[in-house]
């Protein structure tokens, strides 16, 4: 049969033997049976079909494994492959293509759906029949697997010819559904997935032929929609709702019929057309924009705005800006309410009303952030920025906090108000510890917004010192400790070390007193004439108190001396100085209408005791006997004679409320009040100025220490760098004024800690 016995030529002219053709016929028959079978409409095969397929498989197997082809120079596998391909091609061209080409519109979709399904089955079973080829022949990289080969047949025979029409129909359907009509989703999906499958394991065909165009069409569609909505009457109000609805709709559609990779770009197209160009309009719309929603507290609308604008880059920043401005406005309003003295709740101190309303404002937004804005940090930052503006006004700002004083309007700081608020809360008997703790926790949040934290510290120290001296119950001490703990967490231990020292002194007071009493009994000293409880304050911890020269009455003197003796023995090298302005006493008197116990300050007590010696006291004499400045005497007598409990009265009976050096006072024997025990309040000096001044002075030292520290480590630094670094290091405590830093630098130059560089006057050098 063949001319030579060496390598046989493979080629088209080499014919396979008859045995081969006979076997092949079996294959062709099986194939045709398969077609009939499928076209008959079956989906699941009957056992007979399976048997037939197995038979076909065996045929292929036998042909390929007999190696006869090699002897004859015929590659049986290749031949089988080629013929399988022609089978499929022929089938497609003769039956399928003709059908499909004729159809248009929805009919095309139906047809494609049907034919594609059919072809899938053909592929599946044909592949089974010729499976042996896939195990060996098609493993070669240049030969497509059976599946791919058959898909390619479909691609060239059917798909290429109809893809434009098909695409057109798909897009028309989608647009129709967008317009609100119902479509046949199943069939549509099938057509779309055809595009995907035609990519043969890649999305290339789908991306190029379908997705690209779909996205483009989507953009156009929504561009038009957005313009239409905006132009409608009241369109701005409903715009976002509609936009969200559309986005959800597209998302659902993408999930159900499109390739998963399309969803992202598709929704982005919507963002680009529906949202991005209109963000500003939506935000600033007068009745439905962000500001309006905040005003009427429509959290749901704000939530929607948040959801939508977080899809667009930079969208939230604009929104947060509006939120910040709004909060700032609300805060400034609170400030002016305070300054104009608009009534708060009756009986409540103005400071309490103000701080409470600040906390309420803060909470309102916490709720909004949690419920509707996913606690996104851009909003918490906006709130922080807003609070920092109105909580820290400059003196010249229109929203600065002011209070009426006898000299006109005085500037008040939040540092003071917050401290006063905490003071009132701790002193009040709260229902539960948790309640108290919650309020204090919130107040600390407000504290973090304050710039002048050192000023707060000064007020807090002063007020806490008074609290500790008046009230020694354990529960209060615990609350003080807990509050200090909170401050410590935010500011570090340096900030709270003095406060802790004060607390320590207080808790040791009882201890000391016990030992003092022991000392008295053991030394068999005479019993003290009056009940006496001293308290020792360590100087460094407590705020500075003015020393006075009070000459106390005899009874007091004895106690003081005894204690001094005890203390000198009990400790070494410590000096005791009595601060009588802080003390208080209980003085009893049998009035005409009954005995009364009066809680008074030490000064008040000393004045009252004067009346024991003489019925009528001359102011000037009182001053001299007690050795106190006139202002102090005046205030003390004023509180005893013209206050709520006038226990003394003017000798001349005049109905005036003044205290002059020449005035005489006598006991008001007719005095009466219902309660047996009562407190005579003393006039407290206005401390705001002195505390502020002390703070300013302290700042000078702090700034200087900071500058020196910086220069010591950096050796030489430019002016700007030094100032920037100083401000940075001090920012957690207070925000220093630029001029003040400059002044301190100049002072340090004068005192030769620093010098200016001779060549570059902008540069400073540290002088060791």
């Amino acid at each position, binding site marked *: 049969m063949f001319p030579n016995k060496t390598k046989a030529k493979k080629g088209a002219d080499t014919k396979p033997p008859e045995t081969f053709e006979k076997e092949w016929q079996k294959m062709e028959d099986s194939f045709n049976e398969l077609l009939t079978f499928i076209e008959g409409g079956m989906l699941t095969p009957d056992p007979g079909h399976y048997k037939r397929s197995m038979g076909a498989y065996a045929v292929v197997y036998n042909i390929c494994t007999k190696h006869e082809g090699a002897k004859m120079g015929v590659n049986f596998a290749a031949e089988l492959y080629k013929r399988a391909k022609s089978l499929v091609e022929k089938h497609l061209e003769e039956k399928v293509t003709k059908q499909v080409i004729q159809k248009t519109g929805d009919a095309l979709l139906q047809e494609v759906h049907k034919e594609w399904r059919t072809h899938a089955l053909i592929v599946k079973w044909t592949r089974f029949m010729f499976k042996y080829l896939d195990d060996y022949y098609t493993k070669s990289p240049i030969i497509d697997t059976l599946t791919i080969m058959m898909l390619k047949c479909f691609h060239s025979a059917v798909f290429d010819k109809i893809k434009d029409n098909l695409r057109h129909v798909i897009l028309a359907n989608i647009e129709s559904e967008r317009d609100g009509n119902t479509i046949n989703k199943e069939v549509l999906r099938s057509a779309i997935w055809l595009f995907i499958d035609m990519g043969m394991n890649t999305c290339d065909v789908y991306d190029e032929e379908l997705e690209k165009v779909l996205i483009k069409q989507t953009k156009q569609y929504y561009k038009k929609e957005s313009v239409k909505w905006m132009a409608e009457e009241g369109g701005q109000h409903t715009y976002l709702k509609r936009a969200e609805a559309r986005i959800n709709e597209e998302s659902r559609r993408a999930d159900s019929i499109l390739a998963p990779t399309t969803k992202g770009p598709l929704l982005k197209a919507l963002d680009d057309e529906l949202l991005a160009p209109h963000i500003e309009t939506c935000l600033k719309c007068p009745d439905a924009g962000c500001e309006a929603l905040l005003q009427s507290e429509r959290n749901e609308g704000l939530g929607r705005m948040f959801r939508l604008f977080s899809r667009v880059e930079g969208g939230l920043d604009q929104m947060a800006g509006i939120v910040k401005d709004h909060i700032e406005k609300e805060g400034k309003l609170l400030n002016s309410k305070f300054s104009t003295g608009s009534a708060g709740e009756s009986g409540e101190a103005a400071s309490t009303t103000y701080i409470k309303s600040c906390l309420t404002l803060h909470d309102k937004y916490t709720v909004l952030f949690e419920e509707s804005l996913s606690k996104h940090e851009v909003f918490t930052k906006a709130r922080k920025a807003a609070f920092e503006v109105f909580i820290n006004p400059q003196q010249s700002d229109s929203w600065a906090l002011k209070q009426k004083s006898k000299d006109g309007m005085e500037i008040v700081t939040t540092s003071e108000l917050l401290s006063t608020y905490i003071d009132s809360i701790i002193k009040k008997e709260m229902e539960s510890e948790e309640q108290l703790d919650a309020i204090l926790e919130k107040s600390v949040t407000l504290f973090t917004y304050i710039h002048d934290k050192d000023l707060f510290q000064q007020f807090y120290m002063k007020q806490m010192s008074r609290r500790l001296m008046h009230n020694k119950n354990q529960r209060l001490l615990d609350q003080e400790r807990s509050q200090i703990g909170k401050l410590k967490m935010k500011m570090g231990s340096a900030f709270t070390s003095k406060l802790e020292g004060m607390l320590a002194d207080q808790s040791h007071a009882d201890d000391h007193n016990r030992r003092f009493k022991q000392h008295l009994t053991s030394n068999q000293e005479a019993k003290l004439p009056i009940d006496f409880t001293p308290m020792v304050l360590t100087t460094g911890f407590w705020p500075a108190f003015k020393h006075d020269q009070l000459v106390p009455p005899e009874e007091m003197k004895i106690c003081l001396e005894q204690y001094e003796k005890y203390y000198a023995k009990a400790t070494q090298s410590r000096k005791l100085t009595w601060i009588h302005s802080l003390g208080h006493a209980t003085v009893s008197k049998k009035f005409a209408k009954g005995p009364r116990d009066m809680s008074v300050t030490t000064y008040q007590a000393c004045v009252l005791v004067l009346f024991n010696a003489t019925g009528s006291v001359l102011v000037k004499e009182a001053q001299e006997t007690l050795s106190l400045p006139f202002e102090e005497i005046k205030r003390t007598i004023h509180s005893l004679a013209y206050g709520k409990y006038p226990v003394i009265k003017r000798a001349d009976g005049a109905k005036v409320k003044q205290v002059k050096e020449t005035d005489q006072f006598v006991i008001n024997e007719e005095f009466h009040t219902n309660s047996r025990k009562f407190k005579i309040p003393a006039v407290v000096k206005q401390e705001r100025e002195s505390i502020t001044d002390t703070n300013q002075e302290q700042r000078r030292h702090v700034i200087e220490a900071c500058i020196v520290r910086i220069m010591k480590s950096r050796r030489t630094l430019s*002016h*700007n760098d030094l100032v920037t670094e100083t401000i940075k290091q001090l920012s957690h405590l207070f925000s220093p004024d630029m001029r003040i830093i400059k002044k301190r630098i*100049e002072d340090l*130059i004068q005192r030769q800690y620093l010098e200016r560089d001779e060549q570059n006057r902008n540069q400073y050098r540290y002088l060791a």
Partner: protein
Amino acid sequence: MQGKLSGEEHKKKKKKDLAISIDDDSLLLVACRIQASEPFKLGRSEFINGMKSLGIDSVKKLKAEISKWKSALTDKRHFKYFYWFAFDWTREENARVIQAESAVESWNVMLAPRCKSFPLALWNEYVTTVHKKAISKDAWKSLFDFIFSIAPDLSNYNEDEGWPVLMDEFVEWAKKEKRV
């Protein structure tokens, strides 16, 4: 400039000894070069040691050096150091600052002839009528750079460049009062 008694007396003696006519400016120059430590005083040993270290051993040489120094003053750098030294010479004994009036006087003598464009008169007015406090060494020294680098209408003044607060306040006042 006015000299203090001991200095003057001594100088008179010196002058007589050396028979030179020495004017105030030159005196200041000499003091500057010797780095005299006390205002308006030129101690005998200070003078002698100073002359030694400068290598001046005759009156003729001193005269020559003085005129050399005088011409050097046209150079701004030399004049700056000269001006800076003048602070120590002009202050009160043991004081670390100069009173406003004295400072203004010195400035009129030393600076006004050199710097025609800068409104020195305005500055002097500010110092004597508004500021009124004494002038520190740093402010004195900085004034030199100030008048030579700041435009007459103060437009290029930048507070962030580390000028003393006195200059900040002057510029603020001048602008507020619309004097520039």
